[in-house]
C-alpha cells in the first residue's frame, strides 16, 4: 500500500509539471488502463485479507479519485490554455470598416402625411383619396365656384383639354365632393394628396401637397372647427402652448370662412412656432357652404359641418426647418439624405410623432 501512495505522489508531481495533453492521456492509461497501475491494485483486492480489505479498498478509491480529479482538472487547464491561445491568434483589427450597409430614407412629405394621419386618427378621422385628374365640375362648379367667377383666377389651373373640362386638381377639395356623393352623412375624413397649380417660382411649385379635412354631422359648428384645428396644430408642432388666430376670409366653398394664423418668432435665424408675436398663415377653413352640400345631395337644413385645407409641404418646412419648397421635388441625393427619415421611424401617437 505504501508503494501505491508513493506512486500517487510521484504521478501527482508529474501531472503538475506536465503541460501536454498527449502525455497526460498517456499517464491516464498508465494508471487506469487495462493493465494500469491503479487498475492492477484493484485486481489485488481479492488477495487482501478480510480485515484489511475494507481499508485497502477505501484508500485505493481515495487515491484513484485524487488522481482522476487531478487529471481532469489538468486537461481542462490545458484545453483552456489552448483555446485562449487560439483565440489570441485569431484576433483581428476591429477598427477595420464593417461591411457596407445601406440606409434608406422616407421623404419628408411622406413622413408629414403619416404624422398628420396619426393625429387625425386619434380623433376619429379616416383617410380618403381621389384622383389627380379631375373634371371641372368636381374641382370648381360643385364647390360653388362657377365658371366666370373671379375666384377661379386664384387657381392657376393645368388643363388636359382645350374645352377645359379635364384638369389637374388645384386643391384636395374635390375629394370632399367625391366622398359625399358616394356616401351618406355623417362624414369625418381627411384627404391628403398631390395638387397642382401652373405657377412656379421660389415659393411656388407646380405640384404640391394638401390635406383636406371634412366633418359633416347634424350639429357640427365653428366651435368644433376651432377645437379640431387647435388640437391638430398643437399636436403637429409638438408644443404645449400655441397662439392661434382665426381670421375671417373667403373661399367659395365655405361660409363663414377663416384663415388660421399661428404665432411664431425668429430665433437665431430659425422659425420657432408657438408664442412669438408674429403671425404666420398656415391654413384655410370654414363651414361647408350650403350650395356645396346641395350639390352633393346632402340636405343643408339637416346636416352641416366644416372643411379645411392645409399645405403639407409648408407644414413640413416649418416643422423641420426646410427653406426651399422646390428642393422637395428635385431628388437631390444629398438633400434626401439630410432631410429624409429612417423607414422605421413610423409616426404614431404612443411613440410620438418625431424622435
Amino acid at each position, binding site marked *: 500500500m505504501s508503494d501505491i501512495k508513493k506512486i500517487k505522489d510521484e504521478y501527482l508531481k508529474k501531472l503538475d509539471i506536465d503541460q501536454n495533453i498527449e502525455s497526460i492521456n498517456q499517464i491516464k492509461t498508465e494508471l487506469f488502463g487495462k493493465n494500469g497501475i491503479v487498475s492492477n491494485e484493484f485486481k489485488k483486492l481479492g488477495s487482501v485479507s478480510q480485515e484489511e480489505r475494507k481499508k485497502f479498498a477505501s484508500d485505493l478509491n481515495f487515491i484513484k479519485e485524487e488522481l482522476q480529479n487531478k487529471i481532469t482538472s489538468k486537461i481542462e487547464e490545458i484545453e483552456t490554455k489552448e483555446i485562449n491561445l487560439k483565440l489570441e491568434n485569431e484576433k483581428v483589427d476591429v477598427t477595420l470598416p464593417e461591411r457596407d450597409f445601406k440606409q434608406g*430614407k422616407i421623404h419628408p412629405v411622406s413622413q408629414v402625411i403619416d404624422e398628420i394621419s396619426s393625429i387625425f386618427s386619434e380623433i376619429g378621422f379616416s383617410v380618403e383619396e381621389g384622383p389627380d385628374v379631375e373634371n371641372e365640375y368636381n374641382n370648381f362648379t360643385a364647390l360653388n365656384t362657377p365658371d366666370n367667377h373671379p375666384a377661379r383666377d386664384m387657381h392657376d389651373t393645368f388643363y*388636359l383639354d382645350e374645352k377645359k373640362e379635364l384638369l389637374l386638381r388645384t386643391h384636395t377639395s374635390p375629394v370632399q365632393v367625391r366622398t359625399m356623393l358616394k356616401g351618406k352623412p355623417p362624414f369625418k375624413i381627411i384627404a391628403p394628396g398631390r395638387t397642382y397649380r401652373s*405657377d412656379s417660382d421660389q415659393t411656388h411649385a407646380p405640384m404640391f401637397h394638401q390635406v383636406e379635412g371634412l366633418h359633416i354631422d347634424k350639429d357640427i359648428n365653428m366651435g368644433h372647427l376651432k377645437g379640431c384645428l387647435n388640437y391638430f396644430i398643437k399636436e403637429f408642432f409638438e408644443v404645449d402652448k400655441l397662439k392661434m388666430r382665426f381670421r375671417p376670409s373667403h373661399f367659395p366653398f365655405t361660409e363663414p370662412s377663416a384663415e388660421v394664423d399661428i404665432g411664431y418668432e425668429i430665433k437665431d435665424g430659425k422659425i420657432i412656432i408657438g408664442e412669438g408675436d408674429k403671425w404666420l398663415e398656415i391654413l384655410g377653413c370654414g363651414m361647408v357652404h350650403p350650395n356645396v352640400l346641395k350639390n352633393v345631395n346632402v340636405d343643408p337644413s339637416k346636416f352641416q359641418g366644416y372643411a379645411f385645407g392645409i399645405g403639407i409641404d409648408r407644414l413640413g418646412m416649418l416643422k423641420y426647418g426646410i427653406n426651399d419648397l422646390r428642393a422637395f421635388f428635385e431628388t437631390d441625393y444629398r438633400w434626401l439624405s439630410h432631410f429624409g427619415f429612417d423607414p422605421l421611424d413610423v409616426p404614431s401617437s404612443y411613440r410620438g410623432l418625431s424622435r
Partner: protein
Amino acid sequence: MKFTIDWLKQHLDTNLNDKEIINNLTNVGLEVESFENAPSELDDFIVAKIINAQQHPNADRLRVCDVDIGNSETVKVVCGAPNAKKGLFTVYAGPGAIIPKNQMKLSISKIRGVTSYGMLCSEAELKLSDDSEGITELSEKYKEKIGKKYFDTKTPKVVDLSITPNRPDCLGVRGIARDLAAAGVGSLKKIKDSKLNQNFDQDLKVTIKKEKKQGCTIFGSCLIKGVSNKESPQWLKDKIVSLGQKPISAIVDITNYVMIDLNRPLHSYDADKVSKEIIVRNSKKGETFEALDNKKYSLDDNMCVISDQSGVLGLGGIIGGTRSGTELGTKNILLESAYFLPRSIRKTSKVLNIDTDAKFRFERGIDPKSIEAGLIKAADLIKEVCGGEVSKFDIQRLEEEKTNKVKFEISLFEKITGFKIEKKEIIKIISNLGFKIIENKENLDLEIPSWRPDIMQPIDIVEEIVRIKGYEHIQTLIPEKSRLKPTLNRQQKLFHFLQRSVASKGFYETVTWSFTDSKINNLFREKYNEIKIVNPISSDLNVLRNSIFPNLIFYLKKNIDRGFKDLSFFEIGPVFSGTKPGEQLTVIGALQAGKYFRLNWQETERNVDVFDAKRDTIQTIVEAGFSKNKLIIKDQAPSYYHPGKSGSVFLSTEEDKPIAFFGEIHPNIVKKLDIKTDALIGFEIYLDFFKETKKKLKDQKSQFEYSDYQKSERDFAFVIDKKIKAQDLIDIIVSIDQDLIKNVRVFDVYEGENIPKDKKSIALNVTVQSSEKTLNEKDLEKINNLIISTVESKSGAKIRS
C-alpha cells in the same frame, strides 16, 4: 387695394391709432398685406463717388466718369459738368429715374459714341437751388453713405389690403371705412352735399342698344365744357403716387381717384373727338381699335363696346381708346359712369388678355346705384381743379335694378357659429353694414345693400355678423374621439407598408412631378396614349407621366452627373393611363445604379444585377404578407427592361395582372439618356393589382402547425436542357409530395466543360421532413428515387452521377 390712413379718415371718424386700425382690418376679414411707407420718386437719387474721370474721346466738353454707386457696383456716366473730377462725392440717378426739375425720365443712352448709364445731377436739376453750373458737390461726410438714398423722404404709410373676390365694395376706401365703422372702429362720415350748378342738358346722344348679351345695363354721363386740363395739384398727385401710380393729368387722375375712393370706375372722353353720338353695343368680329395701353385690339363678336358713328371708342368697363382720350389740351369732356355685367367683362378681358383696375372692379360687381355719386364727386373735383361748366346728368338704362332681399332666421347664427349674441346686437351690426331691416319675432327681413353682390342667402348673413362680432368669440371645443370607420383601408395600409418596406432596403424615397418630358416618357410609355397638358409650365414638363420611371431616371442621371455612383431611389405615386379622372394607377418604382459592392478590404466588387432587383421585389412582397411559395415568376417584362434580364411577378395565378416587374433597364435607354453608370436596375410594384385577400393577416395566422420530426437534406445535380427554367425544376420537385418536401434550394448552376453545349447542370438541395414520423432510410430512399425519376421523366433531365 392700397390707400393711406389719412384717406381712410376722410370717410371714417375715429380716435384709434394706426396700429389699432390695422388690427381691426384683419379682424373683419380685410387681410393686411403690408403697411409701409409709399415709394417716392426721389428714392432713385443715390449718393455716389467719382472714382475716375477721363476726357470723352469725341467731345471736348464731356467727361467719362467711373462712378461708385455702392454695393461694390461701378457704372460709367458721361457728364458735361466742369467740376466732375476724380474723388468727388455727388448725387447719381440711374436709368428710370425722373429728374425733379424737368420730369425727364432717364434711360441708358449713347452720348457721342460712349454709353452712359444714368446721370450725375446738379442742384438745379434736383430742385435744391438754382445752381446749374456743375454737379452737386457733397462733403466727405457722405463717404459712409455711398449707395444710400440722398433724399430723406417722408412719404405717408400705405395700407395694402388683399381683398377677396367676394368683396368688391372694399375695393373703395369708403367701403373699407363702412366695414370698420360696423366693427366699432368709429363712425362713417356722411358724403358732403354737392353744390354743383347744372344749367344745361347733356346734348350728346347716348344709346344702349337692346341686344342679346348686351354687357351694359346703365350708362350715366355728363358733359363738362370749357375745362383746362393740367397737371394735378400736389394733394392729388400725392394720393396717386401713394397708390404706386404715376400722375397723368388732372382729369385722368380725378377719375382714378374717385375709382379708388368710392369704388366707382369712371371714364372721361374728349367730347370733341366723339363723332356725334355714343352707342353702347356689341362688337362685330374683326372690328379693331387702339386702346390706352397703346395696343391695337381686334375684337370678337358680342364684346361690349362704347362706340360713336365712326367706330369703336373703347371696351366698356375695361379700357378706353386713344382716339377719344383726354389730353392736356382737351376743352370739353364727356364723363362716363356706367354699369357693366361682371360675366361680360370677364369673358371679354379673358379673350383679349387685358387686365385693368376698372376690369378688376367690374368683374367683381360694382354698386349699380353708385352711378350718380361717382359723377357728382368727379364733376365737383374737375370743376374745382380745371374749371368748366357741368351739364345735367344723362342716365340711360335698359332695366331698373332690383333690390335683393333675404329672410334671416336668427337661430341660424348660433347653429352655425356655436355661440349666441343678442338680437339687438345682430340688428346693429347688419344695419351698420347698410342693410335695411324689418324685424319679426324669430327672423328678420333684410334688404341687401346694392354694393354687396356677394350676399344672397342666410348663411351670408351669418358670416357678416360673425366677422364683425369677431372670430375670437368662437369657442374652442375639445375634439370628440368618436370614430366612424378605420383610419386606413386595406389598400392604404398596403401603400404605407410597401413604402417603408422598400425604403428599408436602402432606397431613398423621392417625390417627383406627376408630369414629365414627353421625350423621356415615350421611352417608358408602352401601350398607353400620351396625355398632353394644354398649358404646361415648360416644354419639358408637357405630359402626364405614363410610367413612374421617366422622372426617376431623369433625376438619377442628375445625381450621377453630380458625381454620385451608387444610388438607390424610389417613388410611390400615380402614373396615368388615360385623361379621365381615375384612369391612374398607384405604383412603386425603384431604380438602383452602380455597384452593389465597391472594392473593399473584404469583398470583391460587383455591379448591381437583375437578382438584386428580384430580391428587393420578392422580399417586399413577402414582407407585405404574401406567401413566397405562391408567387409566380415569368420572364416577360415591359420593353424598357433588358429583354433577357427581367421578369414579372404574379400573385397566385397568371390570369391576374402582374403585381411587379423587375430587371435591368434596357441598355438602349441607358445609352440614349447618356447615363454614365456601371449598371442600372429597377423594379415596379403595382398596388392596384394586389387582389384583396379574403382573410386579414391576423386571421391567416390562427393555425400554428409544425413538425418536430427529424429533417433530412439531400443534394441532386441534374443535367438539363438549357431552355428549361430553374423554376420549372423546382416546381416539379415540390409537386411530388408537398407534405414531405419542405424546401428546394438551387446551389449551383453550371454550363461548360463536361456538359453538352445545349445543356446546363443545376444542383439542388432538397429538404424532406414528415409531420407524422421520423423518416427511416427506406422512406428516404423511396422519396429520393421518386424525385430523380419524376424530374427525369417530366423534364428530360438526367441525374449527374
